């Protein structure tokens, strides 16, 4: 997940050296890194108005500044395609696109997502017609229980928008921030073009 200034836990860990981080210290360090430089001064800790542009619709909600983008989407806007699994920036089930780039919605505050174009998995098939990535996941059975699926679909979507013909290695790299417990990687590789018979 590459970006110039947005938060990427993987890049962050690569920079610091994962071995140097104590388990308990990680979430605090991670959360400290996410506010954009131009974030307005906010009164807290009580609810504040937050305007989010989700799937082309701008909505203003009242949430505490500590509410993550993921919780704002899921429990305030009832947009539940992004799942809460690790709530820790480790599994990718909460992946959404922020100005086209995949981010972990659990590791970003809702207030920090203002002014950005947020896309969730619900936006990919607006009229019910599956897009190409979704069709490929269905055709190659790139899912089982489905709880990781929206994250994998969006990570693949982001990759293919940027790089329509990725190599095997580029696909594995782009999807390395997402985890599946049922073991659907075989189908996901095919769906994302990282395995023969896919694409």
């Amino acid at each position: 997940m590459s970006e110039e200034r947005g938060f990427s836990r993987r890049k962050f860990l690569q920079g610091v050296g994962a071995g140097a981080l104590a388990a308990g210290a990680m979430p605090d360090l991670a959360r400290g890194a996410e506010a954009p430089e131009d974030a307005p001064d906010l009164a807290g800790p009580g609810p504040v108005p937050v305007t989010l542009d989700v799937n082309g619709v701008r909505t203003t909600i009242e949430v505490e500044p500590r509410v993550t983008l993921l919780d704002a989407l899921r429990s305030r806007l009832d947009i539940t395609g992004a799942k809460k699994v690790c709530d820790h920036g480790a599994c990718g089930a909460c992946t959404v696109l922020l100005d086209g780039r995949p981010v972990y919605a659990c590791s970003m505050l809702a207030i920090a997502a203002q002014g950005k174009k947020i896309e969730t998995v619900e936006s990919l098939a607006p009229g019910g017609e599956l897009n190409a990535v979704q069709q490929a996941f269905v055709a190659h059975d790139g899912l089982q229980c489905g709880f990781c699926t929206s994250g994998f679909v969006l990570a693949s979507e982001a990759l293919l928008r940027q790089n329509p013909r990725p190599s095997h290695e580029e696909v594995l790299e782009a999807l390395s921030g997402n985890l599946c417990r049922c073991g659907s990687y075989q189908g996901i590789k095919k769906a994302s073009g990282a395995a023969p018979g896919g694409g």
Partner: protein
Amino acid sequence: MRELNKGWPKLDEATHLGKRTPRIDAADKVTGRAKYTQDVNLDSMLHAKFTLCPHGRARVQSVDASAAQALDGVVLARAIVGEGEELEHAGREVAVVAAESEEIAREAAQLVRVEYEVLEHNVADASPDLAGEWAREQRGRDQGDVDAGFAAADVVVEGRYGAPIVTHCCLEPHGSVVEFVDEEHVNTWVSTQRISSQDEDLAGELGIQPENVRAVCQHMGGGFGSKFQFDVWDRECARIAEETGRPVKAMLDRDHELMVAGSRPSAYADVRVGVKKDGTITAWESRSWGSGGAGGGSSPRLPYVFDKVPQRRTHVSIRTNTGASRPWRAPMSPQSCLITMAALDDAAAALDLDPLDFFLKNLPFTERPEVYEEELLIAARLMDWRGRFIPRAAQQGAVRRGLGLSLHTWGGYGHDSNCSTTIRGDGAVTVSCGTQDLGTGSHTVLAVVTAETLGLPVAAIDVRIGDSLLPPSGGSGGSTTVGGISSAARDAALDALRQLLARAAPELNAAPEECRAQGGRVFVAAAPERSLGWTEACGLIGPEALSGSGRTDPELMADGVGGAQMAEVEVDVETGVVAMKKLVAVQDCGTVVDLTTAESQVYGACIMGISSALFEERVMDPTTGACLNPNMAFYRLAGIGDVGEIVVHLMQTEAHHARGVIGIGEPPVISPIAAISNAVANAAGVRVPYAPFTPRAVLTALGKGRGR
């Protein structure tokens, strides 16, 4: 093996059965339309969170929830254990809070003040000698003349093997939502492996009639054996909903989930194997130990698969102050398999025999030698074993390749299930069954069987599952679901079809038993030109839909499978890194209902096994008794780049098909750790005794690292 079963169409006559059907719920899952328990949002819903015990073992002295109760947005905060109660592991729920938001509930749970008397604890299970009074010797068991077996041996090979406690780590955490519709009627959404009996548990807790409870689980985010019981969070969710009159959601946070909501027991063993120079096994002796939590642990089944070998085994059960074990996909089998196959592989290496020859030679000690032989030879071809096997310790250089193999077995006989199939006058078909889909393919299996039986496209079938109001079906455990629901669906569809043919036959000037349904038409078998289109035929039904009912049919299913797996790894002996190159899985499961989801089960099982073999271990702090990695950064699962190439071969011959349906969810998860352990030993030249085969474990085995 059963006689040819007339119930299922033959392989070459089937339209959908055994073919690839895209998973019918996949579109809902790739669009976010699929609603899981975690996704349920109801008006004025409260969120419940728990205060957890931080100590390995402690006695509660007092619980003060007043500060939590005083927090803005908190509706309820209270102790759920009594003063003086002993808590047996870190992560035990001490208090519950319910609040207007999840954030407030989590903050409030931290404000509950609990005084503990900290008690002595044990979280160490890797050695019975260190466990002291926490270890309990179980009665041993002998089979055959073990002493004579060892006396007849040319070589006795000794080794130590094992696997630590791992967690289920379902991506959707455990939890439920409870809503009172009125004083007597309750709706619940729950992430469960047995929706049909969830209503009874909840009704019992609340003292209401089970028929007044509707439990729903349309989709669920993985269970793997950990989601059968009615848990403390389900109970508290229900009680709070009753007390407050508001809907309540209680989903576990990840740390809570990893500490208490399911684990696989550890199992370790010291093994002696007696062998003749020609490779024949003469005797087995093992002393095993392990833990599944405060209750101790189950003993592994040793020797696994080769269970006719003369054997002597003892087991030491170790009580540890860790979250209790729950059935984990093929309970005790991956551990039993690892210990057995690694010990036998070491015996083959000591004799300088190719393990493939060694295992083939000893197949008479197994229950089904001919199945294993066929599967081993297919696996060997897919791996090019004969062309690529290099004896152990025969390689130089930093990066060395290794091959390893393993065998496994499982039952998989279908559970009791009911099913109903309705056909409406407009031709619409609905199949209903109170089963659940763990990601295993239950939706698709029901659609395939119904479509096959009625001669319709799969897309024409509407499938309803995951609801306690539907015809009851068993829990999804033991690989019992597919046999139960597929045979019940066949029975129900045939019942509905008979009724339809009774209406259509007079139109075709034939007797009902002379008619068939196939290719979207109803016709006279002997004169197919005398036919009606499906909709036309259904037009004869009238305003009242036809309803067929079905039950599990033993004639349509069978029990007992085998499987052979081969792994290829690269081991870097300087860094200790093990890389998966390839895993070959050959598996029989009788009748394959849907090839897509059956294969996905095997791929997934292989990957879950790779994850166990290379990454997973619940790490406990011996000083505090706390879990050190209750998160997914440090409780590692295999990622997409970690699994290498996986080749799945399902035994899909008429002979296998003729047996009937057998479950496939569990068997292929059994062998990967063993096959990978053997491949690592083959490459590295030494046995890495305990999974996971991490860089540190590999370097330690090579004498290059510091021990545990």
